[in-house]
Structure formats: structure tokens, C-alpha cells
């Protein structure tokens, strides 16, 4: 296999990263069309850098709101785009969730491994997220992943480091091939690089001395770690390079002695080698000085920082926020009153827990109705005590009765309110029965919840329901009850509509429970029933 194809799949990781952004799979053309060519890719990279910046600060504040604010400012300042809150929200969500997070799914890039003649799946994940809980508030914060760091640093931060290494590499190759003229040029490049590093450090020291508040600890950290780390590494390499050049010089002397090269050629090469050696010496000295200055840099920074803190320590309380507003919101008195009444109430077990296995349990399958069969399918496997079964049947029969009455009266009047229905039921002598367990009101609320009951549509769908009666009001069971069907209300009523009225219903009634009479007062918003 060709050597240059070795570790090919590692190179392709960067291609995969670029592809994940540039060849966006979650294309939202409406949003994309807001941007000119390549602008959106630029914005996405700027966003990545923003997330990196926030991650370095480690303040856990890079949430969606922060991203929205950043994008809003960026677009307004550099792209002359002013988007409203909704658009910014949509755009931020699109960039972060759809593009950078690939809708929550792993982004896989397949790279060829030529050594094994197979494909390697590279997982591309530039940002990570975390749910942060703080005082009953939950939010998601975003951070740059290691892969993201690696990628971004390669695009600039370690550019100079790589360049330096590349120049060293080139010098080595020139010396190896005895291209001493080119080697001289290369050695001058190396001097330039080390002087740039020196300049960066000097600028930093100046900034620190002028105004410590303009310099943050991350700058210091990056400078120390990247610059000095590079210097340490390069110094070793430069020492090796010097040895190599001297070896080349010795070899040349030997060649002259054994008449392999001519004297003229020899003198030219010797001069060039001396030049290279001189330049390498300069680089080594500069590197050594800079490495030695690291301690001084650290001391200068920390001393200046310490002095600035001595003068700037200040604590402030916002009295209005911390004290007055807290007092205004003091509303837990009511909780304490309720606690006094607790002994009067039945004990309540803490909440119930869901067993997920129950979700997967075998379900009762609803079957479509056939014309010849009855509408209700009896599910006789349910094992209930006879008395209990009768009680539930009685409750459901009452539900059917009340529903029929509501529909019939509404049909008679075309439109009627709950208040009016109450009067009618009182006149008919049915009222007390209908409100025994507040059934009438409960049914009215349930019907209102549905909003619109499409009777004709329900029967036309030939739906059959499981006859599994409980104490609960089940409209489907009511509509398919024999007694209800026999009234044939669907012939005259297609739909029943229930809406809210402005006024309120207030009523008093007596109920008999186990021989004891109770007077109940009920109050709620009036409802209107309408048929068509």
C-alpha cells in the first residue's frame, strides 16, 4: 500500500466535520434563504467559537438564551440583518439542534481505511450539552466537545505552532539534501517565528501593566500553555537540528578531503552552513530566554492581579431585590394554615409510580362491528363481584338517562343553557336524582371538555367499543348503550356543541346519603348546549 495513504481515515475526520456543517442535512430552506452564499457557514463557525469561549470561561451560562443574544448581535452588526425574537429563536434552534447536534442523533462520517480496505465510522460531535438544575429550574447548557476544540484550534490557535514545525521540517529536508541555500532562508523563517512569540509575551506584559482588568486569566493560561509549551518542544528540536547541520558540515569536510566535491562548491556550501548554524544559534538563545522569562511573566501577572484585587473588593446588596421583593412575595402563610387542617383529612399515600412494563402489556384489541352482530361485545373475562357489577351498571344507566335528557331537551329548544336545563329537570321532578352524586354537573363538564360531539360521524364509523363499565362517565359507552340507541336521537341530531356562557350557575339542593340529609351548594360557569 502507498505510504501516504497510511492513517488516511484520521485525516478524513476533519473533512467529516466540515461536511457536517457545510453539507447541512437538516436544511430548512426558509431560514437558509435569509443568508447570502457561504454566510450561514460563517455564522455557524462563529457560533462554535462563541461556545468555545463560553466553555473556557466555565460559567455554565452558555444556554440557548445566550446563543440567541450572541446571534442577534452578530447578525445585526456584521450581516446587517435585524431579526425579531421569534426568528432568532427559530434560527438558533435550527443551528444548534438541527445542524450542530444533528437533531440529537449521532452524525456518522464513513472514512476509508486503506490499510484494512474497510470503512471506519467516525462519530462527529462538535458540541455537547448538559441539563443543569438550579432551584427547581432546569436548563440546557452547551459546551464544545474535545473534537470541537481540536478542530477549532487547528484552524487558528495552533496554526503558528504547526507552521513552525513545518519550517523546521523543511530545514531538515534541505540540509539532508544539501540544499544549504534554501536552508539559510528556512533558518531565517525560524528566527521570525520565535521573535513573534517573544512579541506576544511582551504585549501581554504591557497589557497587564497598563490595565489588568482588560486581561483575563484565560488569555494568560493560553499564552503560558501554548507558547511556552511550544517553545519547550521546539528547543529540543532545534538542538537536534544543530547537531544535524554540524554533521552535514563534517561530512562536507570529508568529501572535500576525498575530492568528492570541488573547492569552489565546498566554500559556497561552507558559508551557507555557517549562516544556518549562526541562525539556529540565535533561535536557540531566543527560545532559552523566553523559557526563562516564564517565571517572570507569571510573577508580573499575579502581582498585578493581587494589587488590583486589594483595591477593587466591594460587596453590594441590591436592597430592593434581596429584601423588599422577597417580603412582597411572602406567600407561604397559606401553606401553614393548610398544614393545621391536615389531621382532619384522610392520609394520602405519596404519589403512585409507573411500572413501564405495564405500558407494554398485551392490550385488549378493539374489533370492527359486523352488521349482523350486536353493537356491544361483552368481555366476560372480567371477574367482578355481582353486587359491585350491579352497582356499576346502575351508575352507567343513570349516565345514559341524563345524557338522553340533555340531548332531547336541547333538540326541543335548539339551544339551551345548563341553568335552563336545571329548571326543566326540577319541573319534571328528575332533578334530585340527577344531582345525587353531582352527576348532572360532572357530565356537563365532561361534555364541555369534548366540545363538539359528532353523533352522526360516530355511528357512521361503525365503531364498537368494549363494554368495560366503570364508575366513570364514558361517552362512547353511553352512545352505544341499547337504551340510548333505541331513542334514535341521531336521526335528528348530527352534532351537539357545548360552549361556555358568561354568567354563573348557583344552586342549592338536598341529597340523602345513608339516611342523612345534606344540603349542597354548587356554583359554576353556565354552559350552553346547541344542536344542529
Amino acid at each position: 500500500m502507498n505510504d501516504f495513504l497510511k492513517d488516511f481515515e484520521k485525516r478524513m475526520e476533519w473533512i467529516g466535520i466540515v461536511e457536517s456543517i457545510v453539507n447541512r442535512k437538516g436544511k430548512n430552506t426558509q431560514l437558509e434563504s435569509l443568508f447570502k452564499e457561504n454566510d450561514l457557514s460563517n455564522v455557524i463557525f462563529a457560533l462554535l467559537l462563541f461556545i468555545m469561549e463560553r466553555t473556557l470561561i466555565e460559567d455554565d451560562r452558555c444556554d440557548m438564551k445566550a446563543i440567541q443574544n450572541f446571534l442577534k448581535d452578530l447578525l445585526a452588526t456584521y450581516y446587517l440583518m435585524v431579526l425579531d425574537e421569534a426568528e432568532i429563536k427559530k434560527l438558533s434552534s435550527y443551528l444548534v439542534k438541527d445542524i450542530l447536534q444533528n437533531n440529537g442523533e449521532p452524525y456518522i462520517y464513513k472514512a476509508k481505511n486503506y490499510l484494512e480496505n474497510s470503512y471506519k465510522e467516525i462519530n462527529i460531535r462538535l458540541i455537547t450539552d448538559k441539563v443543569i438544575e438550579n432551584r427547581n429550574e432546569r436548563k440546557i447548557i452547551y459546551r464544545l466537545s474535545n473534537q470541537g476544540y481540536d478542530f477549532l484550534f487547528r484552524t487558528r490557535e495552533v496554526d503558528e505552532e504547526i507552521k513552525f514545525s513545518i519550517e523546521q521540517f523543511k530545514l531538515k529536508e534541505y540540509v539532508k539534501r544539501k540544499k544549504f541555500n534554501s536552508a539559510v532562508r528556512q533558518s531565517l523563517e525560524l528566527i521570525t517565528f520565535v521573535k513573534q512569540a517573544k512579541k506576544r509575551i511582551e504585549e501581554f506584559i504591557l497589557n497587564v501593566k497598563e490595565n489588568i482588568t482588560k486581561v483575563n486569566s484565560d488569555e494568560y493560561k493560553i499564552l503560558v500553555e501554548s507558547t511556552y509549551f511550544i517553545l519547550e518542544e521546539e528547543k529540543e528540536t532545534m538542538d537536534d537540528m544543530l547537531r544535524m547541520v554540524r554533521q552535514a558540515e563534517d561530512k562536507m569536510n570529508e568529501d572535500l578531503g576525498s575530492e568528492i566535491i570541488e573547492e569552489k562548491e565546498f566554500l559556497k556550501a561552507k558559508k551557507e552552513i555557517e549562516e544556518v548554524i549562526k541562525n539556529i544559534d540565535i533561535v536557540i538563545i531566543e527560545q532559552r530566554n523566553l523559557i526563562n522569562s516564564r517565571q517572570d511573566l507569571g510573577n508580573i501577572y499575579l502581582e498585578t492581579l493581587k494589587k488590583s484585587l486589594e483595591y477593587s473588593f466591594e460587596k453590594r446588596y441590591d436592597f430592593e431585590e434581596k429584601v423588599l421583593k422577597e417580603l412582597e412575595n411572602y406567600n407561604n402563610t397559606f401553606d401553614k394554615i393548610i398544614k393545621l387542617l391536615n389531621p382532619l383529612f384522610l392520609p394520602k399515600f405519596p404519589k403512585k409510580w409507573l411500572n413501564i412494563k405495564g405500558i407494554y402489556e398485551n392490550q385488549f384489541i378493539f374489533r370492527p362491528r359486523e352488521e349482523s352482530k350486536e353493537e356491544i361485545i361483552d368481555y366476560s373475562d372480567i371477574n367482578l363481584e355481582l353486587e359491585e357489577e350491579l352497582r356499576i351498571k346502575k351508575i352507567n344507566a343513570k349516565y345514559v338517562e341524563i345524557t338522553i335528557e340533555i340531548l332531547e331537551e336541547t333538540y326541543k329548544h335548539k339551544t339551551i343553557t345548563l341553568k335552563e336545563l336545571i329548571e326543566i329537570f326540577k319541573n319534571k321532578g328528575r332533578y334530585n336524582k340527577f344531582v345525587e352524586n353531582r352527576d348532572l354537573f360532572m357530565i356537563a363538564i365532561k361534555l364541555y371538555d369534548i366540545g363538539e360531539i359528532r353523533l352522526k360521524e360516530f355511528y357512521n364509523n361503525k365503531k364498537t367499543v368494549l363494554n368495560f363499565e366503570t364508575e366513570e362517565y364514558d361517552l362512547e359507552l353511553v352512545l352505544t348503550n341499547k337504551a340510548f340507541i333505541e331513542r334514535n336521537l341521531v336521526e335528528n341530531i348530527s352534532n351537539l356543541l357545548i360552549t361556555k356562557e358568561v354568567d354563573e350557575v348557583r344552586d342549592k339542593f338536598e341529597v340523602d346519603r345513608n339516611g342523612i340529609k345534606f344540603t349542597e351548594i354548587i356554583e359554576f360557569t353556565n354552559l350552553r348546549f346547541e344542536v344542529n
Partner: protein
Amino acid sequence: MEGLQKALKIFKIILEEGEIKRQENFSLYKEFAEDDVRIVLNAIEKEFSCRFLDLNESIYLIPEIDSKTLNLSFKNFKDSFYTNTSNSELYLYYYIFMYILYEFYNGKNNNPKKITFLKVSNLIDRLDDKFMKYEKLNSEEIQLLEEQFRVNIKTSAELWRGMIISQEQSNKKNKITVIQKLLNVLSEQNLARIFDDDEIRTTEKLDALMSQFYLKMDRVREINSAFEREEL
């Protein structure tokens, strides 16, 4: 006596907070493993028909299906939704829940969690595709599937098709509010949450329970395989 007290404390805290994390409550977590505490907890498990599970350095409580005291029954679950939720509607919600679990936990690696979050809009699109696919099957084919997997497909598809997507009228059932209601229930159980009204994310509790407990059950595997083969 000390074992009894520790066991009751563990039980109490789990009932109140849902879990005991080693990181947050190291001493209690350690006590869970003590022999005399385990004896009492075993008795609690028997009496309350429940199970204590130690997963990923957290202790959880799982009620058995027949536990009247602790288990969120079919009826309780129904009550958590709309006041007039029918049985068929509840089965639709079960279907959606099973599908959400499948989307999150169908990875083939040691950690079966495949995705970080699921957007509600994507979930709705995928459910639309699924239920539309069922509409193309004839009655016999659907019946066969329903019998094979014991899942209500026809009624669920009809109900889903009948729902609009809009959120304009909040008291009316529509796809978004139905999913939000389901997520509310799951949120109360500390199993999943919605962020930014759009992102469904699972909790550590659900991750642990699914990957180390529920995914090992035959029935769960059967349903997930059916989703994968696109039979369900």
C-alpha cells in the same frame, strides 16, 4: 432496630424523592447494602409488591403491576390525561410512549441509548408516517398484526389521523397537546422532560431503568424488534 430505622428512612426518601443517588446521599446509599437493612427492605418489597433496584449508583423503586398502593394503574394513568380519555385513546398514548422509548433505546452498543434528544416535530412526522402506512393495509393484515403483537393499531391510527396538529385551542386534543400531556405524566415520574417546548429528553433514571432492566424483558424486546422491522 437500627436496620429497621435505616430501611424505613430509605423507603421514605425514595417515596418522596424518587431515588437515592450515591453522589448526593452516600451514607444512605451505603446503608442500602447492609444485611440487616436488606432484610427489612425485602419485607417491604413483599408487602408493598415492589422492588428496589440499584442501577448506575442510584436506588430506584419499581412497583409491581398488581401493587394497589404504589402502582400507577391503568385508571390512574387515564386520569392523568383528559377527563374523558377513553380506553382506545389511552392505548394510542401507550403506543406513542413505546415508540419514544424505541427511538431512544434501540442502539446496538453496550449503552443502548442512541439519541440525545428527540424533537416533538420529528416525533409527530414519524408517527404520521407510521400510521399512514397502516391505513394502506387491509383489515385482515391489520388484524393479523394486532393479534401477533397485541397492540391496537387500527383504532390508534384512526384516532391519530383524526387529530389536528395545531395548538390554537388548548382544550381540544391535538397531536402536540397529546404528546405534551404524555410528557407531563413522564415528567412527574421523573422519566423524561420537554425543553423549549420541543425537545424530549430522558432522565438518568429512565436511562438506567431501560438499559439495565426493562430492555431485558421479552415483551419489550418483541415490541422494539417489531418497530425495527417496521412491522409496528
